[in-house]
Every structure is written in C-alpha cells, then in structure tokens.
C-alpha cells in the first residue's frame, strides 16, 4: 500500500494483514555529485514502487527517509532507528530499508532490521525495454529476500 489517504483506508480495514513497512533511504547533496545522488534516489524509488506493486497487500510503502550526505553518520543512524522504533511499536513487525546509497552498507550491522542495498544503474541512456528488463532482473533478487524474511521470526528490537 502506498502513502495516500485512499490506501490508508484500505490499511485501516485490513491492518492485521499488513505487517511490513518499506522505507526508501534517499540521500541529498547539492554540492558533491548532485546528479549521482538524484540517480540513487530515482533508482531506489523505482525498485520500491515495484516491490509495492508485487506485495501491495502485505507491505506499506512509507514516505522516504531523506538525509544530507554531509549529515553525521551517527545522527543519521539514530534518526533511522527512531523511525524504525516508531513503526515497529505501531504495528509493523518487519521493516525493510531499501537504498542505493552505499553508506548504509557500512552500518548494516547497527540497523534494527533488513537492509536491501542495490547500487544504482543509470537508466537514462537505456531504451525502455532494456530498462524494464534491468528492473525485472533486480526484482528477481529482491522479492525472494522479502518472502524469505516472512518465513523468519521478526527481528527483536532492543
């Protein structure tokens, strides 16, 4: 389900079936390689949209978690942990962070739940069919990670 009021109604009517929150992690930087950052954001948004489409009835796609690339690693991490806690305490037993930004890979072990990091590919110079093929290849990697997570016990929070 998506971050819209109409889908919120659907969520409120079927809460017990929706146990997974998806949080896109999107970097901002208007100084160092702004286009690279935009490309990361664009690529992960496409993947997140597609995950939502496949798993609409069980996942809620949250508003993106955005941060300046210059933000201190600890502060960024702390903020994400508090998002995680908020949504975990309020009904989501599985939380999946999806990003193309490699900085999260470094702190993966400090994250409370599952990180999916997919390096961004530039889709802009590709023709449509090829771009779709790339995305569907990525989906073949991502979807099984999430269904496998559903087989496991939710991660304990501290």
């Amino acid at each position, binding site marked *: 389900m998506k971050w819209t009021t*109409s889908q919120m*109604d*659907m969520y409120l009517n*079927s809460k017990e*079936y*929706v146990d997974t929150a998806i949080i896109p992690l999107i970097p901002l930087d208007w100084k160092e390689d702004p286009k690279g950052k935009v490309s990361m954001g664009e690529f992960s948004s496409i993947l997140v949209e597609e995950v939502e*489409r*496949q*798993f*609409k*009835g*069980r996942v809620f796609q949250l508003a993106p978690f955005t941060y300046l690339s210059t933000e201190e690693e600890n502060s960024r991490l702390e903020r994400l942990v508090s998002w995680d806690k908020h949504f975990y305490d309020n009904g989501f037993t599985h939380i999946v962070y999806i990003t193309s930004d490699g900085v999260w890979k470094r702190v993966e072990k400090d994250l409370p739940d599952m990180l999916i990091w997919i390096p961004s590919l530039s889709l802009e110079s590709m023709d449509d069919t090829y771009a*779709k093929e790339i995305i569907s290849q990525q989906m073949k990697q991502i*979807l099984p990670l999430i*269904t496998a997570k*559903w087989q496991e016990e939710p991660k304990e929070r501290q």
Partner: protein
Amino acid sequence: MSEKEHKVSRRQFLTYTLMGVGGFMVAGAISPMVRFALDPALQAGGETEFVSVATVDDLTDEPQRFDFQLEIEDAWYTSEQSRTAWIYKDGNDIVALSPVCTHLGCTVNWEGSEDHPNQFYCPCHFGRFEKSGQNVAQTPPTRPLDLYEIEVRDGVVYLGSIIQRRSV
C-alpha cells in the same frame, strides 16, 4: 462526469480549501463520495481502450505471463503504468486473467508455490486460485481473479477493461 465539470469541481475544491473553515465543510461533504469512488472493490474498470498484448501463436494451454503498458489518467496526472496478464488457451477460447490477488492486491504467480502445482499462488497471505481463476476455499481471497476483456484481430490478442466475477 465530463472532463469540464471535473475541472471546475477540482478548482472549486481548491478554492474552498484555501478559504479555510469553509474548506473543511466542503471537504466533509464530498469525502463520502471520494471514499466511495476509491473503494478498492470498485476501483477496477473505466479503461475501455484495447491494448495489443500478445499474438495467438504465443499462447499455450499453460498460463503465461505477458506485461504491457497502459496510459492511466487520474485526477492529478497521466502516467504510463505496467500491467500484467496471465493468458492461456482453453480449447477455442482465450482466457486472460488479472494477476491482482482479490484479497488485498498482491501479484499472484502461476505455480508460484512448489507445493501447489496447477494453481495461482499469492505470496502475501498464501491465497490460491485454480487455473480458471476460481479462488480456493480456506485461503484468504473470497472471489475469483478478475478477467480482462479480450479481442482478437488478425492473430493479435488485445486486452481491454477488467471484468469482476462473483464466481467462475
């Protein structure tokens, strides 16, 4: 509702909203209508244009997945959206099923679970459907998969709007 009325009412809505308290009253008055319009059970339909999706020669007795693009116009913008259909031959007929699980809308796959050959499987809450689209009892979905309207011209399969069924 004609496009013209539509635009006016949208503008009015914004105007009233900007006016403050009046806006709330108006929003209150129209929200039941909006809710009604967005009820997921009623969301389908409305697209009458047919899109070419496959050729008859591509089809077999086994449901195969075909992806295609649709132009969708909603209140705020027009966008290209991907759609999928599971299509197969049933004697002389062609069947095109929507992959959208009738429980809460996840995408189902033909033989998506090894434990359930010859069925469509929904990974979200383990909903299942027979080849005909009939929902399997004791799984969450309560109605069959939707059908696409089909037209065949010169060996090409065109799909149109979604048809909902209470039963197969």
